[in-house]
């Protein structure tokens, strides 16, 4: 796991000019970031009235996630600790305003003015102590405290995180709850190591019907509804982490069944060899009903 950037250097040093450029010129990363921010915006569940909102992008980096916000017409303020990343954002002509700041020092935004906050792959950096003065617990407290204050009543914050282990996840979630947020973790694609994504969905204020944790993409077997636009393969499943029950195994599809095409080919081959082969009919290699 030494490949985690969090373990290599503090963010303001790791994302130097080279790394910032590499990060933003990789079409794969751009694609992933766009998808993540799209999903985060969806989880933010802003009222559907076409009014542009003022959003906060925490750890905005080179403005990849902000681009999605701009596409949806929102105004945003981005905060990042890496000057190099912000320079790239300037070059890319990010529409939002950029601030060089450390989220672990608190956000420094006036109370109650922000309509929603997103953060893509950033908050786990707070779990590291990069300097002797850094205390992860206090930095998380400062971050979530200031985030809670600056959000308007009922506003949401959606933070996509890559916690390294269970302890980190609990540390992050615990700090959020202690700051007064309600909400939980939504895990998309929990069975896949690659596409697994965790979102902290936090709501300002008390838990109510509207602040219920949104459904993860394609829950377990029974409640998996077909109207979700999931491409259907096994990998694209997800489940709430708060749910203790593991998803029941889906009815196993027998992958070994060979189709009509294969049977026809085989018969043809046998015929060429001179073997006696039954004639083809509409019943050849037909499908049986499931109850069979």
């Amino acid at each position: 796991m030494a490949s985690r950037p969090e373990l290599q250097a503090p963010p303001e040093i790791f994302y130097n000019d080279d790394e910032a450029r590499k990060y933003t010129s990789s079409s794969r990363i751009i694609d992933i970031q766009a998808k993540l921010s799209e999903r985060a915006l969806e989880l933010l569940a802003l009222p559907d009235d076409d009014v542009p909102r003022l959003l906060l992008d925490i750890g905005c980096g080179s403005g990849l996630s902000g681009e999605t916000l701009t596409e949806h017409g929102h105004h945003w303020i981005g905060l990042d600790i890496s000057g190099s990343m912000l320079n790239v954002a300037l070059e890319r002509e990010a529409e939002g305003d950029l601030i060089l700041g450390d989220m672990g020092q608190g956000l420094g935004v006036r109370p109650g003015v922000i309509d929603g906050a997103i953060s893509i792959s950033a908050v786990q950096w707070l779990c590291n102590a990069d300097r002797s003065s850094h205390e992860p617990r206090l930095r998380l407290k400062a971050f979530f405290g200031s985030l809670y204050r600056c959000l308007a009543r009922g506003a949401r914050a959606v933070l996509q995180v890559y916690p390294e282990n269970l302890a980190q996840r609990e540390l992050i979630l615990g700090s959020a709850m202690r700051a007064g947020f309600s909400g939980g973790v939504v895990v998309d694609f929990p069975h896949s190591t690659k596409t697994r994504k965790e979102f902290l969905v936090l709501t300002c204020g008390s838990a109510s019907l509207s602040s219920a944790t949104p459904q993860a993409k394609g829950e377990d077997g029974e409640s998996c509804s077909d109207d979700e636009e999931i491409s259907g393969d096994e990998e694209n499943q997800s489940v709430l982490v708060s749910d203790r029950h593991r998803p029941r195994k889906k009815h196993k599809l027998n992958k070994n069944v060979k189709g009509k095409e294969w049977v026809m080919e085989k018969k043809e081959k046998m015929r060429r060899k001179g073997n006696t082969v039954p004639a083809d009919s509409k019943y050849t290699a037909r499908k049986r009903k499931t109850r069979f």
Partner: protein
Amino acid sequence: MRLLTHNMLSSNIKGVTSGFPLRIEVEKMVEKEVELNADFLRNMFAKVEWKALVEASKTLGYTELPDNVEPSMLDSDEFLNRFHHALLELHLEEGALVCPETGRKFPVNKGIPNMLLHEDEV
């Protein structure tokens, strides 16, 4: 940095109780034209600290904003235009933001304010 952002930012130094509004020191400002969206302005009107916005826009050399406002003025196109111009089209490019209580300067380079605190300010 737009004045919208300036209006939302406050000084975050430990022990500072009234870190808003940050005073602006201008070295260079630019104007960038953006499309007006009345809904957004109406949404933001309730959140903006009007006095701070008027002060800030004056520092950037824009004096057309009225000193006193009430929500009914949002129906006038002329007012919306001025509000829009001050809030979203005036950018502080180079200069500094100054904490009103401690006088600590946060430099602004290429439109990006550096709000990083020193260790003893956290």
